[in-house]
């Protein structure tokens, strides 16, 4: 069972960052065969950014099986 990392509070921020990243790497290697973590410019990450902003205004976690309204135009535009 992975630790609930988000419960770690305060302390050294750098080690907190490192601890989360170590956990990410461990899980990623353990569960997935060759998943990569890649960098994109912000302009290429607008869908996730918009959702992250939307997240704060929602009362609870949401999973969307259909395109959420806030990114519908964007998803459409990024189809081409």
């Amino acid at each position, binding site marked *: 069972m992975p630790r609930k990392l988000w419960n770690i509070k305060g302390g050294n921020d750098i080690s907190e960052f490192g601890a989360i990243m170590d956990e990410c790497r461990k899980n990623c290697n353990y569960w997935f065969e060759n998943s990569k973590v890649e960098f994109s410019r912000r302009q290429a990450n*607008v869908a996730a950014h918009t959702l992250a902003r939307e997240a704060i205004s929602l009362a609870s976690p949401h999973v969307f099986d259909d395109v959420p309204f806030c*990114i519908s135009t964007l998803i459409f535009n990024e189809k081409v």
Partner: protein
Amino acid sequence: MKNIADNSHLYRTGNWGSIWKLKVLPKVKNLLWRICQGCLPTRARLLDKGVNCTSLCAMCDESYEDTSHVFFDCLRARIVWQQSLLLSKVISVMQKSSTTAEIIFTLLQELPQGQAEQFATLLWSVWKSRNLRVWENVTDTGQVIVEPAKQLLQNWNLVNCKKQISGAAGAAAAPHTTAIMTDSAAAVMTDSAATVALPVQCKWLKPHQERLKCNVDASFSEALNCVGFGLCIRDEYRNFIKAKTLWLIPICSSDVGEALGLYHAIQWVRELQLSNVDFELDAKKVVEY
């Protein structure tokens, strides 16, 4: 305003539009406006206003420092115009004009757009270099003025053209995009100042064949003391597969937030029992860890 006070004596004739329509940094336009209004604090102007200072040019220490000297007569300025291949044009316009403003307005009108932008940016650089000399005792050579000015203009154009392209792509997308563009514009500005300005990939790219891509991002709200996460999975045909939003209390640093975003993305993808997913974030520190 006209009815309240007569300020007609403040009007200056000139093609002011030719300054404002230039595609250059706002600070450059501002400087041109100040030169043409005659309110740039050259030593001539300072003396005129009763400041106790020398009247000699800060660069050559030989002539009376008014705007026409600083920008067009001073040897330092001449070197700049020579190296930017504008000298013959500048001199021919100078011979026909009686004031600095007239020289500037005429050149802006007669030069092709690209050269006019360069000319304007160089005016700014000449004044900047003069100020560095006065206030920080730094002396530039002509070449040191011309190259950074070109770079300045190029970077600005790069950033602003990109703005238009991505702006058009996501035109109706969301009001937030404006803010994002501004951020990234700033990022590009610093990037390209160090390296040669290359066009950078700024559109979302589909995942590789038979793979999915999960885009991840975090947002932060001081007011709500929380960090929000957005996850969005799409396939190689750019089809939307699933998205997820969640948030956590308390707020954290942006590095930790982005790392937590990735952590949650990995957890979620695992729950969905997907095994062919790549993750994409705009946080360099996380990606390079």
